[in-house]
């Protein structure tokens, strides 16, 4: 298949060899599981169990809190110990409602929804409903509810389901292992998703630095006429949705549009596997594969962990920390988020836990920008990071917006390459946050203004009615006075 060039990008030190040969191992059941109600983009889920209740494996714990939301299920059977607030696996370190489950070790399954015997004959709506009920979200890290994304086929004519096995982030090998160990399952799930989307073809994109995965997936796809496995160059950020679509189709997704407008929908390989479990066996999303790596981890590994297991459980399982890490990261080192502590749970979107040493992060104090322009050269979005940062430094967020800071995908390439070690992406994340906040504020101000207007018109109406009433009373009184006056006059005259 012909590939198309993608602008810019960097070639970070991939450091995947530490876990690339580490087969997926299951984490022994921890003492307690902590299941946050918000593990996805959208409204938080709403708990439907109470403290003290016994639940079975796969039982619904929290219901989707809106059209864009995802339910949470019990990863094992046990007792709901409490529903409490707990530090979220999020850079803010904010607390959020979390269901605490004490496993009883019996792994008793709840009554699951029946398998869909022939998914390819099923109505796409049935598959979407199943995916929604099983709480599946984008497992590459975006955590967007998958069912919503599978509904894109209802409004767009789709050609290709692009299965993202690029895994361009350094360190991470969980998708690599999944493709090598469960190729058939991944492809089956992908084909079910393609059917749900109404897309005729499945294209699996894998970066060239994963030759075994490429070979195994190609072998598994050989018998399937509708699946193509494509080797894409190892170039960060190849796994970015829009850039991957460009590499495969040669077409740029217009700003503020979706790849679906080009007829392509991108899903992650782990999501495909989860969809298969849900559709073929009725199993909700209960666990995921996490790459535990980084220089501070004794024995890096790919661990299949039940959702809600603590990060510290996984780290201990991997032999613990050899040195205090400089940074603990959720996800890859380029786009991952720092974790506030090890006492946070594994969530649906956590593809990696990296305990990085200072030598690995190579974080240096910032120096003045020398305008070398490397950030401009490598920006895969064609932006001018140096100028945008200059605007944001002066708190001119709107100026940065005019330069397109909202087109930035926060891939981190500019911060990675900057010889003056300027935290460019941090500037852009801040600006994007401020812009979102401003938009919210503007909406709120508008709403308040509307409320005030309604209030004032009501008061005006009330005053007018009162005035009218008073006038009427006055008129009546005058009428009466006139009448009495007339009679009086008449009497007097």
């Amino acid at each position, binding site marked *: 298949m012909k590939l198309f060039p993608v602008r810019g990008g960097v070639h970070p030190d991939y450091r995947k060899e530490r876990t690339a040969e580490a087969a997926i191992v299951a984490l022994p059941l921890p003492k307690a599981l902590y299941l946050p109600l918000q593990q996805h983009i959208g409204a938080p889920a709403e708990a439907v169990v109470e403290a003290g209740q016994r639940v079975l494996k796969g039982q619904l714990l929290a219901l989707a809190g809106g059209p864009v939301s995802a339910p949470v299920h019990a990863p094992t059977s046990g007792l709901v110990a409490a529903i409490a607030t707990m530090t979220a696996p999020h*850079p*803010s370190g*904010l607390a959020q409602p979390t269901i605490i489950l004490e496993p009883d070790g019996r792994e008793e399954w709840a009554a699951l929804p029946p398998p869909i015997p022939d998914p390819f004959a099923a109505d796409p709506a049935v598959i979407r409903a199943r995916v929604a009920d099983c709480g599946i979200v984008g497992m590459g890290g975006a955590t967007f509810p998958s069912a919503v994304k599978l509904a894109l086929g209802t409004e767009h004519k789709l050609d290709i389901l692009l299965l993202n096995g690029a895994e361009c982030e350094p360190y991470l090998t969980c998708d690599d292992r999944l493709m090598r160990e469960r190729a058939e399952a991944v492809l089956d799930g992908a084909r079910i998703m393609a059917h749900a989307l109404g897309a005729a073809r499945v294209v699996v994109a894998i970066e060239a630095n994963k030759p075994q995965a490429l070979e195994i997936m190609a072998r598994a796809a050989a018998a399937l006429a509708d699946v193509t496995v494509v080797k894409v160059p190892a170039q960060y950020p190849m796994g970015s949705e829009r850039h991957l679509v460009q590499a495969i189709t040669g077409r740029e997704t217009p700003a503020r549009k979706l790849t679906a407008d080009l007829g392509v929908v991108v899903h992650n390989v782990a999501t495909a596997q989860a969809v298969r479990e849900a559709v073929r066996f009725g199993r909700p999303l209960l666990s995921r594969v996490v790459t535990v790596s980084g220089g501070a981890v004794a024995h890096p590994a790919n661990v299949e962990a039940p959702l809600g297991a603590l990060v510290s459980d996984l780290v201990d399982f991997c032999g613990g920390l050899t040195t205090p890490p400089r940074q603990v990261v959720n996800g890859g080192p380029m786009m991952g988020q720092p974790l506030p502590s090890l006492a946070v749970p594994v969530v649906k979107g956590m593809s990696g836990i990296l305990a990085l040493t200072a030598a690995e992060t190579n974080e240096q*104090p910032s120096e003045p920008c020398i305008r070398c322009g490397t950030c401009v050269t490598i920006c895969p979005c064609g932006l001018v990071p140096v100028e945008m940062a200059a605007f944001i430094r002066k708190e001119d967020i709107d100026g940065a917006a005019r330069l397109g800071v909202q087109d930035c995908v926060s891939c981190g390439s500019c911060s990675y390459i900057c010889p003056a070690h300027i935290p460019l992406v941090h500037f852009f994340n801040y600006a994007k946050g401020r812009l979102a906040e401003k938009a919210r504020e503007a909406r709120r101000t508008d709403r*308040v*203004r509307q409320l005030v207007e*309604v209030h004032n018109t*009501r008061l005006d109406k009330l005053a007018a009615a009162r005035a009218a009433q008073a006038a009427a009373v006055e008129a009546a009184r005058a009428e009466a006075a006139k009448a009495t006056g007339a009679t009086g006059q008449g009497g007097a005259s």
Partner: protein
Amino acid sequence: MLIAVGSMALMGGVLGGVLGLASRYLAVKENPLEQELQSLLPGANCAQCGYVGCGQAAAALARGEAPVTLCPPGGKAVAERLARKLGVKADLSGQVDKEPEFALIDEDLCIGCTRCIRECTADAILGAPKQMHTVLLDNCHGCAKCFKVCPTEAIKMCKVPVTLSEWHWDSPQAHSGRLH
């Protein structure tokens, strides 16, 4: 020399006259700026700026008597917009956004006097005479007018908690002192 001086004086006189006449006959009676400024303000007439309402605040701004940073609920965003409209350079570095607040009524202390309801410009308080009142959180914009009139101090102003989806990174410069 004389010609130069004369011609300059003549030109000055003529142009000055034109300007003077223009200012008299082309003058705009009402200040359109006032209305534009008012449209930038939140419009809640909460009086936190010290003026009776947003209209009066806009008038003061147009006269140049009030700073663009006058509106506490509007925060930095409104100050920026006002500064741009007025073409002034506002130093917003010292301006700390007042964190958004909402009013909370202590149900044990409320005596149902309805003063707060009459004060609320956004219809955010529900209740009837002699009955307990509650605040509709979605409508409350934290102007604190109810807070000021409550005779039993049953109203508390609370900070709106930051949610996971609303949280965002602070500027890297905010941390420059802490780095290394």
